[in-house]
């Protein structure tokens, strides 16, 4: 009897494999969480896009915000832009990281399409982006009031993404800040 039982081992192993593959169908192998979750924004010293004044991590902190990585050469960024404008209008603090772009073109773009960003970090060489673990545009980071990275979304931010993924966390962080303030 024991030896017959042994013969069921391959079937059992296959069942485990099949379950794993089934689970795999609902996972996305290319989805990558940021390596900086729950870590502060890396130190940097880069100029602001419009004014040229030097910014550092302290300028970013202070309020729960979105850091949006964008560029004029990025087609999807153009697609997401109107929604970001509407988000900014509704009171969300959005900061921009202009990724490996040309200042003049970027400023023109903002002029033509609207500016949802409180300010823009001009990362012409992509150094801050590299430290952040950015690998393409658009990407959007959710930062808490201390400037700690809480979440990263890769790809376009639209209504669905905001409602299902970003908004809940955003509200939670805002509530935490409100609870702390006297």
């Amino acid at each position: 009897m024991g030896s017959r039982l042994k013969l069921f081992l391959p079937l059992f192993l296959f069942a485990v494999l099949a379950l794993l593959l089934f689970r795999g169908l609902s996972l996305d192998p290319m989805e990558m969480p940021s390596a900086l979750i729950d870590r502060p924004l890396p130190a940097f010293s880069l100029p602001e896009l419009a004014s040229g004044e030097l910014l550092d991590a302290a300028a970013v902190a202070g309020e729960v915000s979105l850091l949006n990585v964008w560029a004029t050469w990025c087609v999807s960024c153009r697609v997401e832009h109107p929604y970001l404008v509407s988000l900014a209008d509704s009171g969300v603090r959005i900061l921009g990281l202009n990724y490996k772009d040309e200042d003049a073109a970027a400023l023109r773009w903002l002029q033509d399409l609207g500016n949802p960003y409180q300010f823009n970090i001009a990362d012409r060489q992509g150094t801050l982006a590299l430290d952040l673990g950015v690998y393409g545009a658009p990407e959007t980071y959710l930062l808490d009031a201390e400037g700690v990275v809480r979440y990263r979304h890769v790809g376009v931010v639209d209504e669905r993404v905001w409602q299902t993924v970003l908004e809940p966390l955003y509200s939670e962080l805002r509530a935490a800040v409100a609870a702390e303030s006297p």
Partner: protein
Amino acid sequence: MRISLGGVLALLITLWSLQALAVIETYEFSDPALEERYHSLSEELRCPKCQNQNIADSNAPISRDLRRLLYEQLESGASDGEILEHMVARYGEFVRYRPRFAGATVILWLTPFILLLAGAAIVALTLRSKGSRGGEHPLSDAERARVDNLLANREGSD
């Protein structure tokens, strides 16, 4: 068919990164040993957004940036371990093609050994049961009688 934006984006990225172009940078190394380390390390690091390519073979912009970062790190005198940690700190374990021997990935490195040991055990067990100790069973009297019977009946026919 509902075409989602994410799908289009994924498709664009897929098409873009499918271009496996020969990626050839002409970095000048101050030391040939550094160039060798550059080649071997660029094969250890994965391009974060490509469809399974190392940064040596991929032409994606992020790959180019990582190769430049690798070059700068090497020239600045960092060790292999430090360079890999530097990359992992930014892009996560995903970016290493050789999983580290720690935590959950230990099982990956141990599996071949475990399998070999299991295999050796199976071989030993099998040989033991089949070997001369298992022995050949001599025919019992009843079996021998049956054999004689059969042989007698078959004689003359083929």
